[in-house]
């Protein structure tokens, strides 16, 4: 090659980065000026150190929609916890005044008293108002809506936890092992994905009705076989979405060089999963769980609406809406209360989930 070799005084080729072939004699020190202290200090300006979690929380609380939904959900939670302590009626109690059944307390409008109650109040007694009125079986409607919300939220949370646990274990095994194991596990997921979930819920609730014998009066009994089959179906069918999501997440994290770096350090597999993979898909897990809750609530409400939900007299928002359907023309507000509550909860969870995603999803960062 016709490269010109520059040599130093000893005759060795001179080595200086990026100037091997450059004629350095063209330049001298006077052509450059030294960086001032101020210029140097500009090089090491750094923002305040924040952890990933703190940073995400800060972003979340900057999002007005997310903050609004947190407030709404907080209020709903307060109401369903404390309202039963304040309101003196129970969800299955047929109203009575001084031990006498109040037959006139049927289908009362909000804050309306029946004739018996009015007489009682005129006689000097105090009566807690029927905030949402009463239903056609003379039960306080407000407390029924509160209990319905309780059931819906409990179902939502537990169903999402079931989905999360099964989906996370299945997805992380499939994603981390990869190869043939992944192939087989994902084909199973595909098969489960193609099963009609509604059909299975109906079938299961029919079968479970005869198989399961709960102690009368126990919590499981009051939930009813429909609800149990709903949980089972969530456990059997709905985890596949979560499993796919987590598998995909782990597959993409596995590609990162820091996993390879950990391997080259000699870190064992357990440490890599624990220290590197799981913390990095945590945000996705949190977000998708937050979005799973409203979908579970929605499914439960829908099933209750078509009559496959909780067992009467235990109310749920869906079954309340269903029974309100009968007197829709005379008492439209009865549909309004449970329907509005469902909307409020589902909307809040969705907005909160969106806010969490915006705050924590690393793909949207920077």
């Amino acid at each position: 090659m016709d490269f010109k070799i520059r040599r130093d005084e000893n005759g060795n080729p001179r080595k200086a980065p990026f100037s091997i072939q450059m004629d350095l004699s063209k330049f001298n020190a006077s052509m450059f000026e030294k960086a001032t202290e101020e210029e140097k200090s500009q090089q090491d300006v750094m923002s305040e150190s924040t952890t990933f979690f703190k940073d995400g929380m800060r972003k979340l609380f900057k999002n007005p929609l997310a903050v609004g939904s947190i407030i709404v959900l907080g209020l709903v939670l307060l109401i369903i916890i404390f309202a039963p302590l304040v309101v003196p009626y129970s969800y299955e109690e047929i109203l009575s005044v001084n031990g006498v059944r109040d037959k006139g307390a049927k289908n009362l409008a909000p804050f309306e008293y029946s004739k018996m109650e009015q007489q009682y109040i005129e006689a000097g007694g105090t009566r807690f108002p029927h905030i949402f009125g009463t239903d056609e079986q003379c039960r306080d409607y407000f407390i029924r809506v509160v209990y319905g919300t309780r059931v819906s939220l409990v179902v939502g949370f537990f169903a999402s936890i079931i989905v999360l646990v099964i989906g996370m274990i299945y997805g992380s095994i499939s994603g981390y092992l990869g190869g043939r194991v992944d192939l087989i596990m994902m084909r199973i997921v595909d098969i489960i994905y193609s099963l009609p979930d509604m059909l299975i819920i109906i079938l299961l609730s029919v079968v479970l009705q005869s198989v399961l014998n709960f102690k009368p009066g126990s919590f499981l009994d009051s939930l009813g076989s429909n609800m149990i089959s709903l949980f089972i179906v969530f456990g059997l069918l709905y985890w596949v979405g979560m499993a796919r999501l987590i598998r995909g997440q782990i597959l993409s994290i596995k590609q990162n060089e820091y996993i390879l770096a950990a391997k080259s350090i000699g870190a064992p597999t357990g440490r890599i999963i624990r220290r590197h993979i799981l913390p990095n898909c945590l945000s996705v897990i949190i977000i998708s769980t937050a979005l799973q809750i409203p979908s579970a609530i929605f499914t439960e409400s829908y099933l209750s609406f078509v009559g496959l939900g909780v067992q009467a007299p235990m109310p749920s928002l869906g079954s309340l809406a269903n029974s309100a359907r009968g007197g829709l023309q005379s008492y439209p507000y009865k549909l309004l209360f449970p329907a509005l509550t469902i909307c409020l909860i589902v909307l809040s969870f969705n907005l909160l989930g969106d806010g969490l995603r915006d705050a924590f999803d690393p793909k949207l960062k920077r």
Partner: protein
Amino acid sequence: MSTPLIDVRNLKQYFPVKTGLFKTEFLKAVDDVSFSINEGETLGLVGESGCGKTTVGRSILRLYEPTAGEVLYDGVPVTAKNIGRMRQNMQMVFQDPYSSLDPRMTVEDIIGEPLDVHKLYENRAERREKILTLMDYVGLNAEHATRYAHEFSGGQRQRIGIARALAVNPKFIVCDEPVSALDVSIQAQVINMFEDLQVKLGVAYLFIAHDLLVVHHISQRIAVMYLGKIVEMGKADDVNYTSIHPYTQSLMSAVPIPDPDYTRQRHRIVLQGDVPSPLHMPTGCPFRTRCRYACEQCAQEMPPLTDRGGGHMVACWVK
């Protein structure tokens, strides 16, 4: 001659590629590569994208299970069994400073991870002290220890990666294009740091890069790879200034030189065609499809690496 620190013998790394429903072909990423690196020496490895440079580095560290051949560290073969201990002697610096650091870990934990894995400290105070020493080596301030990787610039991140590699006090570091992702001004800083560390700690480097000037600057010897094979290897100046293999010559003629007078008068060798697919390698010499000197012998047999004087090895029939 004493035993070299790293001795790579006939290393082959094939990857299975599904080309049909039942057909599996092998991608020959690294095909029969041999070289050695002495203690405290830097071997530069150059070649275009996809020629197997990175694979060589990773196979040495057994991040891939080599198909054939062996790697000797100080005369001891590196096997799947002893690789755990070997990783205290051999480490790696990665190409992309953005993806090679876990975004959920502080600098202290990133640099401390090798110490944790190999249990190289007695107590927390010693761990902290070791980490601070390492940070000082690579020019990071102690106050950076509690920060997260995403708060740093590319050059600083690469320094963190280097500190992590140095944590176990290795004798040999594979530098996988450690400066390719950095700005030129930062490149110079990092390269100078590599050199300083070599003087201070006596580590040997396998310096993988595609920037010929950088490689020439830092390496004592250079190996040029083309399609998984080493085509030329020798002292840095020999390979750079008196290259023999036609591929190396064309590479050298493509080096940008910031001197317009020189650029105007020099002659560029432009290669015709594309790199052949490593799945369907040409017979004989892999370079013959683009070589202007190609003859019949080139199509029949791969030329062996022969010494052309002073350890300057070239694999070419013609030149």
